[in-house]
């Protein structure tokens, strides 16, 4: 049931993108999220599209799998598109049917915004698909390290993040298990009126909460029992290494940015 969800899931493979340093991937994603807002005409969007699909290709994630996993999100993209098309009232009138008026600017905005949204989703899922949760938190912790000077709890944040990422699959499994147990007791999750379906979630959510709290407590005890005392003086088993490919990726992104600035209208 939850098997198809791919958000936050790591797909092991040997690829250029997998081998990149998590720090460079994080920086690239962060910059990409900013840079994408530079695009404002057809040519710049094509450029962004080429870049995104190039990265996807390099990651060797099967397209069919990606499509199946992102299908639910595509609905959101479509929804954004329709919202823009129907509610932007600028530019020349293209089509009119009763109270529905569609303007040129609306269609343009709709397509651009949903494209931007789509590329953002692709790139950000690429990060989690090609980087293990531990790598992501390690990278983040190192990148945010300067913030320790202002007493920001970087290590604790990173720990919280890795714990929550680590338990996503567990929680999914648990959800699946309890769902099945309740289906066996006659709950119908997939059909019936909306009100009934919302009610059907209760027998799922309560056991999930109960077990999550229990698990959190057990985890805390297990960590204390093994002498966990926070980040002070803690060394790492896996060391991050910045390679030439990482620098190259940043350069490519820089070139893309310059092109976007030159080509945008």
């Amino acid at each position, binding site marked *: 049931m939850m*098997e*198809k969800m791919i958000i936050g899931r790591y*797909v092991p*493979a040997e690829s250029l993108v997998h081998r990149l340093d998590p720090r460079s991937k994080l920086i690239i994603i962060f910059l990409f999220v900013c840079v994408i807002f530079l695009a404002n005409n057809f040519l710049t969007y094509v450029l962004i599209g080429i870049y995104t699909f190039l990265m996807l290709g390099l990651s060797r*994630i*099967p397209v*069919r*799998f990606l499509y*199946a996993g992102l299908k639910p999100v595509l609905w959101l993209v479509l929804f954004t598109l329709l919202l823009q098309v129907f509610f932007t009232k600028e530019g020349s009138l293209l089509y009119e049917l009763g109270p529905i008026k569609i303007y040129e600017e609306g269609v343009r905005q709709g397509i651009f915004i949903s494209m931007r949204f789509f590329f953002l989703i692709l790139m950000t899922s690429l990060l989690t698909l090609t980087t293990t949760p531990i790598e992501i938190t390690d990278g983040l912790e190192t990148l945010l390290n300067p913030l320790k000077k202002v007493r920001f709890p970087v290590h604790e944040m990173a720990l919280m993040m890795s714990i929550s990422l680590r338990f996503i699959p567990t929680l999914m499994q*648990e959800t699946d*298990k*309890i769902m*099945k*147990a*309740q*289906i*066996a*007791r*006659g*709950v*119908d999750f997939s059909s019936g009126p909306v009100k009934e379906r919302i009610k059907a979630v*209760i*027998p799922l959510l*309560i*056991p999930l909460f*109960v*077990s999550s709290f229990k698990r959190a407590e057990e985890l805390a005890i297990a960590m204390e029992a093994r002498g966990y005392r926070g980040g002070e003086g803690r060394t790492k088993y896996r060391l991050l290494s910045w390679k030439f490919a990482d620098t190259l990726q940043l350069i490519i992104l820089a070139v893309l940015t310059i092109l976007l600035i030159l080509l945008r209208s």
Partner: protein
Amino acid sequence: MDISLQNIEYRYQANTPFERLAIKDVSIDIPTGTYVALIGHTGSGKSTVLQHLNALLLPTEGTVVIGNHEVKAKQKNKNLKQIRQKVGIVFQFPEHQLFEETVEKDIIFGPMNFGVSEREAKERARRALKQVGLTEEILEKSPFDLSGGQMRRVAIAGVLAMEPDCLVLDEPTAGLDPRGRKEIMDMFYSLHKERNLSTILVTHSMEDAAKYADQIVIMQQGRVVKQGTPLEIFSSVSELVDMGLDVPEVVRFQRSLEVKLGIKLGATYLSIEELSSAVAELLRGAPV
């Protein structure tokens, strides 16, 4: 109710990089009133087979026949709810499914979902509670205030109250103390006899399999490798040992006795009583 699995195959997450073949070419017949024990290592596909028995998983290949219902691979299947009413599953650690405010509400949840009236459901709850060896005063308590053992029993009562024709048990006594284990297994057995249920038990305990089952099915790496009565299965000890499986203590004792005394008893005995009388017979007949 007859249940029959015909050449079923199941793949988890078909068409993704995570695709994994869980079971292949599994055929098991479970006529009404049979007690079947499913044995195998962790990951051998037992739980996957079990979830086909009430259409929680639909086979990717093959057919599952449950009573008058037929569940085929690659077909839109309707009326799954009717199947689920007939087949009650007690999952591993069933206490994880408890969620209501009171024990009573939790037990009647299943029956009410299948359209049983509230009065009837409450009556069933009382009966089921008695069957699992609890008293009525806990009906008004919150299930989360109970001890682990009590929670387990309440959860089992919740399945029994659906009054299924077929009981599917996935290691129902894992993590219980030996006494509770025996009580619950005996309770399932007497229920099985009383109501002429079909019972499928997934277990790691060879003792339980030898004691209760009419048929034993051994699974390995997603396939059925051996099927037969407990006597047939436990007569070939070496084969079981090769598969890395245990044999009941009684059988192990008999084997080591035979080796030590250099004799052969006529048959394999599955209970202490049978074995001891056979040994007594032997001693009386031929002094060693």
